[in-house]
């Protein structure tokens, strides 16, 4: 296995000293890291750690107070979301955002119409959408209204919408929260398949167990700062991580 630092190419994503302040609160403070091509980076942290803010800053859905975001070595700090999308960066939303008035198929087709490698006609986009719905496993709901989908299927729809833009970097924001065990397993498998097809993945998760099994490296956010960044094993054995997640008492009890 090649360590990320030895990969000679420019990182797909690089974040430098990123910070975001909401009024008096620093949602994110001095966050720097980079993601290499083909890597799966897990981002974890307790509620309010700044995970979603991090994704929003990368995809242009919020502007950083300070710091830079580089996609493929190019500074895209403060660019609008569609510019970032056309740099082949796609995302899902933690609170799913389907286009409610359209069918599931049309929801996905929109990404194929307006993302990268655009289909020239609506008809081609709908064909692309069908392939992607099949890929994420909700082909049978193609003609349904998105509001009729289960939580798990609505997340799959988010994923298909993002994939339809043909990203090289995919940011998934809590795609596994609230899923059942077997649903998490299939989500994990799907993420591996995406990586095998050449997509770099940044997976923000609250569910520790799921993230450990998918990620090459894990970034732990706590109160808006990086607590640690390393392999899943290193991160899991870091007492600071355990403390951040489970509190002092758990750490004390374990050490007794």
């Amino acid at each position, binding site marked *: 296995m090649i360590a990320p630092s030895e990969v000679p190419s420019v990182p797909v994503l690089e974040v430098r000293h990123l910070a975001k302040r909401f009024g008096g609160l620093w949602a994110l403070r001095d966050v720097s890291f980079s993601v290499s091509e083909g890597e799966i980076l897990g981002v974890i942290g307790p509620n309010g750690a700044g995970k979603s803010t991090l994704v929003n800053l990368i995809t242009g859905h919020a502007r950083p107070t300070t710091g830079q975001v580089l996609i493929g070595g190019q500074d895209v700090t403060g660019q609008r979301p*569609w510019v970032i999308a056309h740099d082949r960066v796609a*995302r899902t939303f933690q609170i799913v955002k389907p286009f409610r008035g359209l069918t599931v198929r049309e929801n996905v087709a*929109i990404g194929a119409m*307006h993302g990268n490698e655009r289909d*020239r006609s609506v008809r081609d986009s709908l064909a692309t959408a069908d392939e992607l719905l099949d890929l994420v496993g909700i082909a049978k709901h193609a003609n349904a209204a998105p509001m009729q989908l289960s939580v798990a299927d609505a997340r799959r729809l988010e994923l298909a919408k993002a994939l339809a833009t*043909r990203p090289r970097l995919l940011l998934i924001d809590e795609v596994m929260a609230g899923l059942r065990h077997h649903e998490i397993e299939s989500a994990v498998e799907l993420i591996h398949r995406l990586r095998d097809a050449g997509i770099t993945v940044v997976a923000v998760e609250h569910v520790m167990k799921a993230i450990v099994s998918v990620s090459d490296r894990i970034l732990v956010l706590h109160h808006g700062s990086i607590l640690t960044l390393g392999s899943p094993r290193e991160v899991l054995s870091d007492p600071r991580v355990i403390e951040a997640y489970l509190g002092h008492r758990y750490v004390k009890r374990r050490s007794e």
Partner: protein
Amino acid sequence: MSSRGPLSAAPTPGPMADILRGRARSRQGLFVGWIRALTPANSWPALAGLLVFAAMLALQQLIEPGTQRLLTSVFLFVALAQAWNIIGGYTGYASFGQVAFFGLGAYTVAVLMNNYHVSFWAALPLAVLVGVVFAVAIGLPLLRLRGHYFAIATLGAAEGAREVINNLTSVTGGGGGITIPTFGSDAPTPYFGKPGFYLAFLVLAAVSVVVAAVLARSRFGYAMVAVHEDEDAAGAVGINTTVVKVVAFGVSAAIVACAGAFYAFQQIEFYPTDVFDASFTVLMVIMVMIGGSGSVVGPLAGAVGLQLLSQFLRVNLGNFNQLIFGAIIVLVVVFFPQGVVTYLRDAWRTRQFSILDNVRRYRL
């Protein structure tokens, strides 16, 4: 669970990679693709539209002047409702200032014909241009506002436009109104007369329906709906939401300004209060809401239905016609909040025709 591959793995070739990267599809021209995609099932709206258009052409020979005038006003409102629906229905930005484009279109034609002796057909594209330029100019700042704020801001912009026309007395005649020379050697373009304007407004209505239908089925149409539903999500899939909003506003303004231009010529003489009358905007909104927004048939049915109903009440009810008209609008909005056409379409699809259920569904 698959094992982890090397970090810089080359993409595995195969169908999965093909699907995710996209592969070249047929590169035929847009319209060729459309025509090939036509089937009996999806081409009937176009055929029905052609039939109605032909029927309206034939009907002109059979009807008396009064009916002809009524239908001419129906055509005008079909165009205006379709135009409003593009920005207010599909894109979800309820503009209460569309009459500004109507008035600007009207005054552009009147000023050019009256002051500069420009022919109507030369003035018409300039009127559309003025409408579009004004739409882009106010759209760029105002389309950043949402909901009520956008509605109020556009209302204000329309009032402002009227005041400007009102006070440019040397050019527009101000509050004293303006007259288009229509007869004799003074007329840059001979007056169309009733049959001519019937035809003009019929064509305008048809063009607006076709524009709306083509837009709705295009990639741009899906972008408008996406902007309507969720701008953050639309941006995330690569839609330039600013461009979509401004273009939708501009297309809407172009149709409205065109309608205003024909209206000015038809009226010959008018005042700023006539062509900047906010009740034009209100009627556009009501017609779209009653018919059903976000579809092509909804505004069409709303405009035809309300204009005919209004005329019927005026003829048959005398003094109380406005009261009854208002009451009917209130009842329709209460029982069919999503619009009559949308209700019928959904009811037909789900085979659930209960109006009470419908009210419950939309009035939580």
